[in-house]
């Protein structure tokens, strides 16, 4: 029987550098059967191995409709991500997954989608955006508000341009005051402020909000004022994980194991959880 802790070997297909400390990596399953059979729900995460250094948890930031492998995006922060920073095309890493509950894309059908993200939180939103664009007829208007501290901290910038060209998609990018460059043509301001200025309608909408705690804290009142119920606002939680399968006892947020019953929660569900994250 399979050892659930043993990863699949993945070949690194390409590495893209986004900022001074953020890279994204495309990987393919080495095993052909695995490659063929692998499926995941957008919003699920994987546990990626840098052999010799350890494992790290990242959202699978490619769309679930893409067949040529997976993508993950990370910031160089600690021991494992420093090791992953050094990998190149042709290297081998490990992957376990997919884990977690994923986004309820079925429940989102027919809705207008509002995506709000800050900094390194773009990757878990990116997969949902691509999924919606690939199933365009299932979803209404798409609004994307994405910001970072400075222009240099924005990730997937070329894809923001792509999305802006699609039908009924509005992309607003912003940087914190003082983070702009002389040729910056986007908005200046924090994501919640810029979002409120944009006066997006809340009718028949769901929102996906991912970012640092301060951004989420300041975005919630804006969504409340818009009239968006908290059960229609989604986020993806980060908590320290090791096993990913509900056994090592580390990631629980009160009664909820983030790796199994999350990481995707509505704000209503999150409000019922203790401040354990």
């Amino acid at each position, binding site marked *: 029987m399979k050892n659930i802790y043993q990863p699949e070997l993945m070949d690194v297909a390409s590495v893209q550098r986004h900022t001074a400390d953020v890279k994204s990596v495309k990987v393919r399953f080495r095993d052909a059967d695995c490659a063929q059979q692998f499926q995941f729900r957008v919003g699920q995460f994987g546990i990626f191995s840098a052999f010799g250094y350890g494992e790290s948890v990242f959202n699978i930031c490619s769309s679930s409709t893409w067949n040529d492998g997976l993508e993950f995006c990370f910031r160089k922060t600690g021991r494992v991500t420093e090791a992953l920073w050094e990998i190149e095309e042709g290297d081998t890493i490990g992957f376990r997954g997919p884990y977690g509950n994923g986004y309820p894309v079925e429940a989102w059908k027919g809705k207008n989608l509002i995506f709000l993200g800050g900094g390194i939180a773009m990757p878990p939103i990116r997969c949902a955006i691509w999924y919606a664009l690939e199933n365009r007829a299932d979803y209404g208007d798409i609004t994307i508000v994405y910001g970072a501290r400075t222009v240099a901290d924005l990730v997937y910038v070329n894809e923001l341009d792509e999305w802006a060209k699609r039908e009924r998609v509005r992309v607003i990018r912003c940087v914190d005051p003082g983070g702009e460059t002389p040729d910056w043509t986007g908005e200046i301001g924090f994501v919640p402020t810029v979002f409120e200025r944009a006066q997006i309608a809340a009718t028949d909408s769901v929102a996906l909000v991912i970012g640092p705690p301060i951004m989420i804290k300041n975005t919630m009142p804006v969504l409340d004022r818009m009239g968006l119920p908290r059960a229609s606002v989604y986020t993806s939680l980060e908590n320290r994980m090791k096993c990913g399968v509900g056994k090592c*006892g580390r990631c629980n947020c*009160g009664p909820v194991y983030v790796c199994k019953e999350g990481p995707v929660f509505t704000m209503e569900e999150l409000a019922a959880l203790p401040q354990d*994250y």
Partner: protein
Amino acid sequence: MSEFITSDNLRQLAAEWIAQGIRVAGPQRAGGRVLYLPLNDAANLLLDGFIHPANSAKEFLLPKTETLYGYRVEGHDIKLVEEAEAETPQILLAVRPCDVAAFPFLDHIFNWDYADEPYNQRRRNTAIVALSCSTHDANCFCTSVGLGPASERGADVLLVPLTGDTLEVQCVTEKGRSLFAGKTKSDNVAAMSAAGPAPRFAAEAVRKFSAANFEHPLWAEHALACVGCGACAHTCPTCHCFDIVDEHSARVRNWDSCQFSLFTLHAIGHNPRPDQGSRQRQRILHKFSIYPDKFGEILCTGCGNCTRNCPAGLGVLPLLIAIEHEEHLPA
């Protein structure tokens, strides 16, 4: 009619098992303590003279360190090296009922949606012979969590000491019956188990309070003495939290503890449980609120090891009693 064995014959039987290449483990003296250890010489097996070994028997199902698999770095490539299956049969002998009752909890969590094969292999190859308690100490509270000195939960066999050197042999499962077939004598005498400690607190009161009082000064107050080591978790029969690390070309699973400050530390430096109060709260919540809500069982068998081993004399018992007192205070 009941079945009986003398302690001499039991040790003789253990010696036969050892000679057959079965890994036998049981209570023995080491380092001035009584510990569950691998048994090399059946003469060292202790059947009385102790309340509870200082460690727990979980080590034989969930080792303190375990290689999950190995790997070889070959240029840009990695070769995985699978671990050989844990085939050696083992018999855990003279294990206290409060240790044995923990095994069904571990079975549950290690098979919750995902089957943990390293654990399951070991489990399949293990037979468990429990030893009922004739007495208890001030740290025992098995009766407060639905167990008792003669609990058969999780056991293949339950041994109940009689006066003199005889033990009654109560076979609970087929596996247990096959272990002792032909090794016992029948008699009409029935062994009387000890009554066990009087209940120390009401578990339901603890569950109610913990679920409703995430922010309460009681957690920090009681944690003042806690030094943040892992003595409680490592000697607890039900604690199973583990770490996964890469060491010496292998991915290894090690015992961890929610009391360590590093347990929930994010790489970015954020820690959801930044102080000992929040970490103590997690321990109580996990055992007395979260586990019961999710799986219908309290993740504690009342063995008292945490309190016995705690350098500060804490463990869970003083906190549980304080919580129940708090829950029953007039609103």
